[in-house]
């Protein structure tokens, strides 16, 4: 804030962005009333996604995606552990960054959310009926899947580009070869089946060895294009924080995905190596994990017109496309301007030699001024990400000066500075990355909390801040602690989701191979040293309720919850079971607990989710015989 006051004390100043006078009233959602908006926040290093209500900022749910979740058994049970399978083996954690909402005609359609895993390159699809992770696909020939998963206008494809360039295919080469061109990046096109949402890797494009940071795809007239930021065009490999910050401009890569697909169809891509897993969780059946091999790889030189570089100051981070599809806003994290490229100008100049200043790997580099629509001058320090309100204004987060600036598209004039507490990364407006922003709420997703909450040891929760942007001036309403790092968010109007949220898994549709649909089928079946327990749960008992196995047996508890009532999952936990946390089994669902029968004795098992007046009686015994 002091920095703003000194160097960037623009006309309004931070002090005017005060808390709204009736802020408490505007975030208060009375008991029994519901919020107006769902906010889905990625969890950063928690690997998960959390669901909040806006404006109350109440936390409703954590959806496990890339990290195991002992609360409900995700990643542990026989049904979901294959979801976390990769070519590196079972990877039970990741770093989840960007949430993308599925779109039809550029507008949120409430079907799916997508999330990237940054560390072990993966993409996930979360179903918005069940609010559960249904598919995870690994991205081969990639190291650090940061610039993903950004969807095209009709969710035809998700884009994924590599953060860390590496030798592709992988090889142990001297690291100094990075600057000799031995390292490369890839852009991946992951196809989304429009009906089922199923993911498949259709094409990869080999790109220069920079670090690819973020992306956003076009809308309307720019439908065919996606835009990726890259930094470290210096190809520094030592002391990168200095080495990668030398060039005055790095690049936004303009990528014509329709052209890439055309080149694929014309046979211009070649077979390339790369192994990857695709894990899919069919409704109420165990996850199916497939190991796939080989991709189609396209070289930019074989597909003229597929890519162009737009120089962008300086170490650009965010690249955001306005609702009309005309403006591509760069966030140069070390820049003193917010550069805005014009899509129309890009189209006009891209193939005219006089507008080029060179090529990299046969990708033309255009001149900065040739595609420039305008610059927001001295907006703040460290501009990163921009979202749009649909009313002609853009909001850009500024990491270094900890603020959000509101500015006008076209005039490039700053309208307002909003302080953020502290170090804001992404920001999110309801529908703000779509063609049709709902434009009422904005949240700033902050990296540091410092003095905002009661201290709880060295680490504080990271936080998000809620602003009302419906009026002329944006107003701060509240801030709230988050689960993990609230990296990016998609906010969706509640009316698009709430009525179609699933309440139960219908028993008659349960296709699990070990499901039983009524108690009379409950039984214990021995197959050599393997014992299968076909078990049911209903308030407030299990069947079978007394079980005998032998020490050393491998026991599978196939537990079906017979309830068909909303909000009545049952829990299942066995005393001392070393590799299994709790299971939560949804109404009508079957899940499987694998257990190596330990030394002889009596082992209790019980329901962990308080289910009825006789919940405490929902307990039984397993006897382990010698």
């Amino acid at each position, binding site marked *: 804030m002091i920095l703003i006051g000194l160097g960037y004390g623009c006309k309004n100043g931070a002090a005017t962005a005060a808390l709204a006078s009736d802020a408490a009233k505007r975030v208060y959602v009375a008991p*029994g009333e519901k919020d107006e908006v769902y906010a889905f926040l990625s969890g950063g290093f928690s690997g998960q996604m959390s669901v909040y209500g806006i404006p109350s900022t109440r936390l409703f749910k954590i959806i496990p995606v890339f990290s195991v979740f002992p609360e409900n058994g995700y990643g542990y049970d026989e049904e979901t552990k294959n979801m976390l399978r990769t070519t590196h083996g079972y990877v039970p954690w990741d770093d989840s960054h960007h949430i993308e909402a599925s779109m039809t005609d550029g507008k949120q359609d409430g079907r799916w959310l997508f999330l990237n895993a940054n560390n072990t390159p993966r993409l996930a699809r979360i179903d918005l009926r069940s609010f559960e992770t249904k598919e995870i696909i690994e991205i081969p020939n990639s190291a650090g899947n940061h610039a993903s998963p950004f969807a095209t206008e009709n969710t035809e494809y998700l884009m994924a580009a590599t953060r860390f360039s590496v030798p592709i295919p992988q090889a142990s080469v001297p690291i100094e070869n990075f600057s000799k061109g031995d390292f490369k990046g890839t852009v991946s096109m992951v196809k989304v089946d429009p009906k089922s949402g199923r993911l498949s890797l259709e094409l990869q494009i080999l790109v220069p060895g920079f670090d690819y940071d973020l992306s956003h795809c076009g809308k309307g007239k720019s439908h065919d294009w996606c835009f990726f930021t890259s930094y470290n065009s210096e190809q520094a490999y030592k002391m990168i924080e200095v080495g990668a910050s030398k060039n005055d401009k790095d690049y936004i890569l303009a990528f014509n995905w329709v052209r890439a697909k055309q080149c694929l169809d014309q046979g211009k891509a070649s077979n390339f190596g790369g192994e990857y897993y695709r894990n899919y969780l069919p409704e109420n059946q165990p996850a199916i994990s497939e190991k796939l091999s080989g991709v189609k790889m396209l070289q930019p030189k074989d597909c003229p017109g597929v890519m162009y570089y737009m120089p962008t100051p300086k170490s650009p981070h965010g690249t955001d496309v306005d609702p009309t599809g005309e403006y591509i806003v760069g966030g140069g994290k070390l820049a003193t301007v917010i550069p805005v490229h014009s899509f129309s100008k890009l189209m006009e100049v891209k193939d005219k030699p006089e507008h080029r200043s060179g090529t990299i790997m046969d990708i033309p580099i255009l001149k900065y001024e040739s595609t420039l629509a305008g610059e927001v001058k001295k907006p703040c320090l460290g501009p990163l990400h921009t979202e749009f309100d649909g009313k002609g204004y853009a909001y850009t987060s500024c990491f270094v000066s900890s603020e959000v600036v509101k500015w006008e598209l076209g005039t490039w004039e700053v309208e307002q500075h909003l302080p953020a507490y502290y170090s804001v990364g992404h920001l999110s407006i309801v529908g703000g990355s779509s063609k049709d922003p709902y434009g009422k709420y904005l949240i700033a997703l902050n990296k540091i909390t410092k003095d905002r909450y009661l201290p709880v040891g060295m680490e504080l929760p990271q936080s998000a801040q809620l602003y009302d942007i419906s009026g002329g001036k944006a107003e701060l309403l509240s801030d709230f602690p988050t689960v993990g790092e609230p990296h990016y968010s998609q906010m969706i109007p509640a009316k698009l989701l709430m009525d179609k949220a699933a309440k*139960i898994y*219908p*028993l*008659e549709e349960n296709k699990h191979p070990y499901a039983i*649909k*009524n*108690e*009379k089928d409950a039984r214990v079946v021995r197959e050599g040293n393997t014992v299968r327990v076909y078990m*049911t749960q*209903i*308030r*407030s*008992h299990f*069947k079978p309720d007394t079980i005998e196995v032998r020490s050393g047996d491998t026991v599978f508890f196939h537990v079906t919850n*017979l*309830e*068909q*009532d*909303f*909000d*009545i999952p049952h829990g299942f936990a066995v005393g001392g079971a070393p590799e299994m946390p709790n299971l939560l089994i949804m109404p009508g669902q079957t899940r499987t607990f694998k257990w190596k029968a330990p030394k002889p004795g009596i082992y209790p098992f019980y329901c962990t*989710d*308080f*289910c*009825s*007046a*006789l919940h405490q009686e929902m307990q039984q015994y397993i006897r382990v015989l010698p």
Partner: protein
Amino acid sequence: MKIIKNIIKFGKIAPVLLGLIAFSYCGKEKPAETESSVASKGVGPVSSVTLGTLNEGMAQKGKLNFETKCSACHKFEEKVVGPALKGVTERRTPEWIMNMILNPIEMTQKDPIAQELLAEHLTQMTFQNVQESEAREILEYLRKMDKK
């Protein structure tokens, strides 16, 4: 409907609350199972059922649904979690039985007989996602069992 929605929302603790409601109600004035309450049609979507001669096909479908969705808590000859069902079609009207299957939470809030049953058994009967036509088939199965 707002109250009902809220109770459903808090479904996990509702049995306790409802139990208390039922008890306090009983404490004030225990509703006798009068002629009129025996003839009660209960509270719910079913206001009128015409019974014909026993339909074997319907009863058979009802049996399958009963086994999947009801038998975990109900036997005919003995109380388990819920009451024994032998003779239920003589004790209750067809409408009451179907409403209890289709609308158990509101029944235990508003219907005096259902309230008494909750106070006795202390486990909220669950809605098992049974459609109205299926409830009618289960009723037919219960009739068949009572004719044995």
